[in-house]
């Protein structure tokens, strides 16, 4: 009820008075607190890669996470393919640590949902993250969409869906949105087979966007994970 009044006042005033800035901070704090309750987890994951020049079947594996930034995807000798980023793709890593400025960007519609948009800017100039923009479901205090601009790895964009583990801000589904570069190898090296046929199995697509969807299930949260789990090399 109180929140609704706040929202009405927000729309009526149409500006971001100091009261809303505090509210933005408060929302951010709530979110952060939720996220930081997760010290570690293990989850079964399914990876679906949708990249125009890749044919990859669904990859099943186990995701390990330990706060603050240890993460590993295990496929028991099988391959895992994740976007090349030096930052682990966990929420806790995509939200900058340390002192930050929380800027209220108001609300916005995202995929038909009205979400609160916060811009998080670290005070520290040297932080890997330059800024993070969060689209938050205020009621549930959950990040639905984020765009993190990093120092070295461009912008990371993710969509999140939650279900059984919403209370921990652990998503059931994460969709990583990719900007793709062209992939090409000389035909003289690859000796492709289907070149002689008019119909090829891969049609070159003009789309430069791709996605990686990670489906999480069977989270085991805060049971304690040894650091050794993250020392295994998969190569």
């Amino acid at each position, binding site marked *: 009820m109180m929140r609704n009044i706040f929202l009405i006042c927000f729309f009526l005033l149409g500006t971001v008075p100091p009261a809303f800035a505090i509210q933005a901070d408060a929302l951010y704090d709530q979110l952060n607190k939720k996220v930081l309750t997760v010290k570690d987890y293990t989850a079964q994951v399914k990876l679906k890669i949708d990249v125009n020049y890749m*044919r990859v079947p669904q990859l099943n594996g186990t995701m390990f996470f330990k706060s603050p930034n240890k993460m590993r995807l295990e496929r028991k000798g*099988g*391959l*895992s*393919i994740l976007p090349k980023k030096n930052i682990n793709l966990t929420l806790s890593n995509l939200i900058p640590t340390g002192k930050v400025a929380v800027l209220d960007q108001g609300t916005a519609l995202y995929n038909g949902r009205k979400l609160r948009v916060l811009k998080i800017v670290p005070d520290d100039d040297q932080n890997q993250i330059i800024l993070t923009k969060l689209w938050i479901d205020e009621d549930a205090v959950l990040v639905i969409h984020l765009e993190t601009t990093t120092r070295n790895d461009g912008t990371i964009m993710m969509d999140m869906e939650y279900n059984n583990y919403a209370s921990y801000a652990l998503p059931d589904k994460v969709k990583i949105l990719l900007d793709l570069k062209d992939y090409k190898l000389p035909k003289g090296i690859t000796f*492709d*087979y289907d070149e002689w046929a008019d119909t090829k199995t891969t049609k070159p697509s003009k789309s430069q966007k791709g996605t990686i969807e990670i489906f999480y299930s069977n989270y085991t949260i805060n049971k304690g994970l040894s650091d050794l789990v993250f020392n295994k090399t998969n190569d």
Partner: protein
Amino acid sequence: MIALLKIELYKIFKRPRTYISFGIIAAISFVIQLAMVSDGKTFVGFALQGITDQFDIHGTILNGYLIAYIILQSLLIHIPLLVALVAGDALAGEAGAGTLRLLLTKPISRVQIVLTKFLASFIYSLLLIIWLALVALALSLLLFGKGDLINLKSDTVIILLSNDIMWRYALAFLFAALAMTTIASLAIFLSSFAQNSIGPIISTMGIVIVFTLLSNLELPLFNLIKPYLFTTHVIGWKGFFEDPVPYSLIAKSATILLLYTVGFITATLVYFNQKDIKS
């Protein structure tokens, strides 16, 4: 004809040069496997440059399936030569040695002789492929273990899961046996003209190399003839490592290879049946 076939196979496998072929296949496989053991990661890193710019790939990239696939690529050039080594000698070698003359004084038709030599060459090619499967696949799996396979095409990257690969290899080897049979039939055809096996062996290789170039060069002029060249279809075994597998394309390729094989053997029969044996 079974007796004739047994005699042909006996003659083939009594010659030391036959075993050179098996030795070469083993040598190529060992060399590649050794290279992978010592420097495989560099090779993989280089090969995956186009993807690792944008993606982190973890896991056992360098596994038995990948290495076997790399060795199989040598099918393009090396094994046709080894097939031609025996098939090219089938008629020309006997003509040069003078034994063809004696053979043809016996109560067997020339048709029987050609067909028997073709069958013997087919069996030899099959044994070569089985041997390849053992040293390239079985040994690679033993040394490097299983894993998912990355198949790099010019414009696509295909990942095949470890439990979805073995049946592909089985079909690929079967197709390879067919492809090598086509090469053998070409070699036998050329062999029917010569009095010495060097000519047919080199000619077969020359044709394979030139046609392979034509099959792979991206020139509009060549694009017209590509679908009709047998070398375009010899690599049809690679279709089994695509996702989805282009079965109808592979079937077309197999049909074309069969047609070439039948064509070469028919031409050999027609020519050889009326040829004066002056050697």
